[in-house]
């Protein structure tokens, strides 16, 4: 079985700054992995490299939906990467603010539908069926995520935690096999975080979607993750189960600093 995402020797340079330095990472099907590290370690840059917002300076990003054949996706445009089954959320919420909650999710259905300009104008049976499919699918996702009470509300009128969940709902609509969550719990209160914890597990177990998340909330990371990857200054400094990471000296050093011998 091949990993569904395999990153090999990835570098990302911004001018003279090496934001990601020879990073390796692989995720198996059905895994919940976490990417942690101090602020500015290059976690979001890593997401941007995988999802096509940046093109990595060197290295390979390989995906494999069926776990048999790997496909290189370096330098593909973000929309193509999404079509291939990698969906993401953003650290600073990026919802479509002039649209309703349902429409936000409907946008997510874009890559799995195909109505064109003529179809939209003539609204033939195929276009109507597809529109119905989009609406039904979006509503089903909102029900699953627990946002079905807000269907016709404007996305920005939702409470903060609900907005984050809506981002996840929107990403789910694109039919991903791997969901990349960039700090999903940021700004959430403990109760919301707990609901998020359950939601992520539910997505993994019921939808069969693997998850890679960036998170600073260690309690959430430790309880959820099967595997944790720690980066600092763009380099990987540790990898393993939550237990391993807790006891890894390099990780402790990166987070807490080093003891100075007197």
């Amino acid at each position, binding site marked *: 079985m091949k990993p569904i995402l395999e990153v090999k020797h990835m570098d990302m340079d911004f001018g003279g700054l090496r934001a990601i330095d020879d990073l390796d990472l692989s995720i198996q099907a059905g895994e919940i992995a976490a990417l942690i590290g101090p602020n500015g370690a290059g976690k979001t840059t890593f997401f941007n490299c995988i999802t096509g917002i940046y093109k990595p300076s060197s290295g390979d990003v390989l995906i494999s939906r069926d776990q048999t054949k790997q496909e290189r996706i370096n330098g593909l445009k973000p929309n193509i990467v999404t*079509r291939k089954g990698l969906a993401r959320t*953003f650290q600073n919420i990026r919802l479509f603010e002039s649209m*309703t909650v349902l429409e936000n999710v*409907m946008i997510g259905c874009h*890559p799995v539908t195909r109505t064109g300009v003529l179809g939209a104008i003539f609204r033939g049976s195929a276009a109507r069926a597809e529109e119905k499919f989009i609406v039904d699918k979006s509503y089903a996702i909102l029900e699953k995520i627990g946002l079905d009470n807000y269907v016709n509300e404007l996305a920005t009128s939702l409470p903060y935690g609900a907005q984050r969940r809506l981002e996840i709902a929107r990403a789910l609509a694109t039919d991903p096999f791997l969901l990349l969550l960039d700090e999903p719990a940021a700004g959430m209160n403990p109760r919301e975080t707990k609901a998020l914890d359950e939601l992520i597990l539910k997505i993994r177990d019921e939808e069969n979607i693997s998850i890679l998340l960036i998170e600073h909330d260690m309690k959430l990371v430790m309880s959820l993750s099967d595997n944790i990857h720690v980066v600092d200054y763009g380099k990987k400094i540790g990898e393993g189960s939550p237990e391993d990471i807790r006891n890894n000296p390099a990780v402790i050093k990166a987070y807490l600093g080093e003891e100075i011998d007197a």
Partner: protein
Amino acid sequence: MTRAKDEIKKSTLTALWFMFLTFPILVIRVNTVENEIEWRWLNMAGIGIGTFFLSMLWRYMIRRQEMGTKTDKHDQLSLVQRLLLNRKLFFSVAACAVVFTLAFPHMFSMYQTSIMISALIYVMLGLGLNIVIGLAGLLDLGYVAFFAVGAYSYALLNLHYGLVFWIALPLGGLLALIFGVLFGYPVLRLRGDYLAIVTLGFGEIIRLVLENWNAFSFGPSGIADIPKPPFFGIDLSLTGTTIYIFYIIVALVIFTIFVINRLHNSRIGRAWIALKDDEIACQAMGIDKAKTKLRAFGLGAMWAGMGGVVFAAKTSFINPASFTIWESVIILCTVVLGGMGSITGVLCGALLLILLPEYLRAFAEFRMIIFGAVLVLMMVFRPGGMIENVRQTYHFKKSPDAAPVDS
């Protein structure tokens, strides 16, 4: 009470300031005949009192505006918006509007009909630009170029190949669409202010080419004797043709509204709005940014092209002076004033902006002042435009296992 005192104090200060500002021009007058200075204190008093009351009114309106944003959302929906949401009422009003429009050329003079044709051409232009600006959020300041493409394509194709109106109409639209895509291509990476500047340049390029390429477009002297649309081979009188063109443009406007409404509430239209709201998130949702932008440019330009063909047929004479940057600005204003993304809004905006100056010719000198003032007031009190766009709502039956909720 302190609040009222505060308001009065601020308004008094404003009044004093205006009295000071207008002092040199409104109070002092040098009488050159008798070589003496007149002091017109009465003017000053007038300015002071006038400004004071205007300032009070302004403050009151601003306060009401601030209060308004705090109230519930549903109360904020204007009368027209509620009308749009009520299907039964909407259809009866629409039916009345259609009957009125059909009877219009028979009820009013040729002059009125002719003005109405111009206004309806602008409605079409506004609706087209609404795709580009209102839906896709691409600030296009050179939109009139596509209008010119349509007008010139009819004029030139007719001149050289004798093409009739009915063939030129779709062809003009198609040519404008192609131009839209061609112009859209190099500016795919730009947005906001940069896009506005480049499109402004493109608009001017088209106009300058038409003005200077004598061999192609006959330069500033333009093209005359463009035939009116034929009516089954029958020669219509001047009145007859005007009425005929009126019905053609009405049909075209209805067609435009139909198509844009369909596009608006479709996968394509949603992609445009997503693009306007957030480009990065839009791409992360699997939407091809380049394709979506080109679609918006092309489909927006198409209506301008068709409007151009009708314009050429109506005036039977075109020259580059009809396609200046000023026209682009007017079209942009109709969209902004009417309400970005809202079809009814743009319709009303265009009719208002084109018809009012025609009927208020008596105040022609103040046109620019009124125009500017109206825009400023709109931006302060109704930034979303006269009739804001209402999002489509959906209703669902709850799944049995879902918690019940009121909607």
